[in-house]
């Protein structure tokens, strides 16, 4: 039909301006959405630099502790109070063994010459398995087992390799070699010493303690007929470990945490803020461009008011006329959306290659959520314009 009659009174500059605004807004919002998705993916990768949902808490150690006048354990009430914090998802307690133990490091025969015999007093702790950053294959122990799986902090082996070994002229130990080594553990228990063979099952970046399966700690404490002591350390799984309210709470109660993780948490927090700002600016631009489109649509209708009124008087229903305008916008917006996706894909690909140079690996393809987000915005813009057109045309019909 004769659409030229209704659409001929265009103003090219304002149309181009509105389109540019819409493209920019679409692009910014999609970019923010994609970036948010990318970073959440990075944050949720376990044991990654940026993951910081775990906090390890202990009470401040003061002279009073040394003198034995002050309990450094967490009481049940204190744990319950922590559980009630909105930022805290779950709380795990560190439980320690309470027997004296000696550890003697034994390495396989062929390596005996290089690595000297090491002997040390030792203690063990356990945390619920859900709080571990690694999940070793044989992470269990049952009474009667002589082999005891152990997780040691990565820091330990680093400390040995880069501190002790060079200074004493000792050879460095790889993680693989450490795992093949056996630690003879002599535990002083009621009814005589017991010997266990400790096998390193893995290295933890998250928890700086010598960890054994919970069953072992429970068993040894039962054997010694000791009541489980109040845990001196807690591990928290947090939604937002850098929340100021949580930090204030911890400070107030004299709890200390691992500061490095907090730094990461702050970085995480800042990144989120940057993305929220990006998302906010994108929203603003989208809304402004929607506004300019609505005004443009109203202008278009206003400029053709005579023609539209005549058509309505000839018997055209306003929705029939609306369809023509809407089709125009549909044709205008579809390439716009495709262009936004194209630019986003190119930009994202470039960003990913930049990040992979920095050692962060991301999937360069756009996520389904970004596609869906783009479609939602497209529908939002079009329905906003469609509704505005409908209202203006209905007003003319009366």
């Amino acid at each position, binding site marked *: 039909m*004769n659409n030229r*009659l209704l659409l001929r009174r265009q103003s090219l500059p304002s149309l181009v301006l509105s389109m540019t605004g819409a493209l920019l807004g679409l692009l910014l919002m999609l970019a923010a959405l994609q970036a948010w998705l990318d970073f959440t993916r990075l944050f949720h990768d376990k044991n990654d630099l940026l993951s910081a949902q775990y906090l390890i808490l202990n009470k401040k150690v003061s002279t009073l502790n040394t003198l034995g006048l002050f309990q450094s354990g967490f009481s049940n009430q204190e744990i319950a109070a922590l559980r009630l914090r909105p930022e805290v998802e779950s709380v795990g307690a560190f439980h320690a063994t309470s027997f004296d133990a000696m550890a003697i490091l034994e390495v396989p025969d062929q390596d005996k010459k290089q690595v000297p015999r090491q002997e040390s007093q030792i203690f063990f702790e356990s945390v619920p398995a859900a709080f571990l950053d690694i999940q070793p294959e044989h992470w269990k122990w049952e009474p009667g087992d002589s082999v005891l799986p152990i997780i040691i902090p990565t820091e330990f082996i680093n400390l040995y390799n880069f501190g002790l070994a060079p200074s004493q002229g000792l050879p460095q130990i790889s993680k693989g070699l450490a795992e093949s080594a056996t630690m003879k553990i002599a535990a002083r228990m009621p009814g005589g010493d017991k010997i266990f063979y400790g096998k390193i099952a893995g290295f933890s970046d998250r928890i700086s303690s010598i960890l054994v399966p919970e069953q072992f700690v429970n068993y040894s404490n039962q054997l010694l007929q000791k009541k489980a002591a109040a845990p001196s350390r807690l591990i928290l799984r947090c939604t937002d470990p850098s929340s100021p309210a949580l930090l204030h709470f911890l400070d107030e109660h004299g709890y200390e945490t691992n500061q490095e993780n907090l730094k990461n948490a702050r970085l995480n927090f800042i990144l989120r803020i940057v993305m929220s700002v990006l998302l906010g600016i994108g929203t603003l631009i989208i809304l402004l461009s929607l506004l300019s489109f609505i005004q443009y649509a109203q202008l278009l209708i206003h400029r053709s008011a005579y023609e539209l009124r005549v058509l309505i008087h*000839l*018997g*055209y229903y306003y929705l*029939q006329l609306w369809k023509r305008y809407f089709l125009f916008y549909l044709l205008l917006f579809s390439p716009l959306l495709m262009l936004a996706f194209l630019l986003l894909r190119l930009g994202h690909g470039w960003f990913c290659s930049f990040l992979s140079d920095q050692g962060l690996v991301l999937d360069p393809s756009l996520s389904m959520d970004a596609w869906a987000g783009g479609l939602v915005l497209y529908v939002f813009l079009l329905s906003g314009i469609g509704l505005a057109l409908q209202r203006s045309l209905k007003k003319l*019909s009366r």
Partner: protein
Amino acid sequence: MLIELRDLLPLPLEGMPTHPATLWCRTLQLAPGSYQLIMAPSGTGKSTFLNMVYGIRHDYRGTINLDGQPAGALSLKGWSRLRRDKLSYVFQDLRLFPQQTVWQNIQWKQQLQPGIVEEEIMHWMELLGIAVKRNVLAGKLSLGQQQRVAIIRALVQPFHWLLLDEPFSHLDEPNARLAASLILEICQRQQAGLLMTSLGQNDFFPFHQQLTL
């Protein structure tokens, strides 16, 4: 379609001294297929009355019933249906699109109700002497020619009533007669009624009733 008028008066005329009118403030029935002449001097509301019947103006008191239905209760969709199937109107100010050709102007109506074929419309245009202007922009035509385009456009649809607002004001007597005879022929074929306004007496159509405002 029966048109009933009850105690009708446009709001702008309220309180103004009116001549003894046979239309305003009366109860009237305009029988389907009847030819009505509405005769009055300028500015007494002839166009207003047609616009009220056609649903363009709503600022009146009293009621207009179309086939028993109060016109005031009609929806926008209801009006557009009525204008497609039952009411056609030759506006006093013609309401053509000057930047479109004569044929494009007529097509708007034909696309809405594609009942009447192109050959027939061309035949009508030949009768009224504007067939040669088919592809000329309406704005380039003389007022008389434009008036004939408006008349033909109004005929290109089914209707029960044809509203003519001083339809021959720009035509000379012979051309007016030609147009009137075409209108009469189509009205008879469609068994439609006529509502024609005029400044004075005329015998273009065999009127059943003359109304004054």
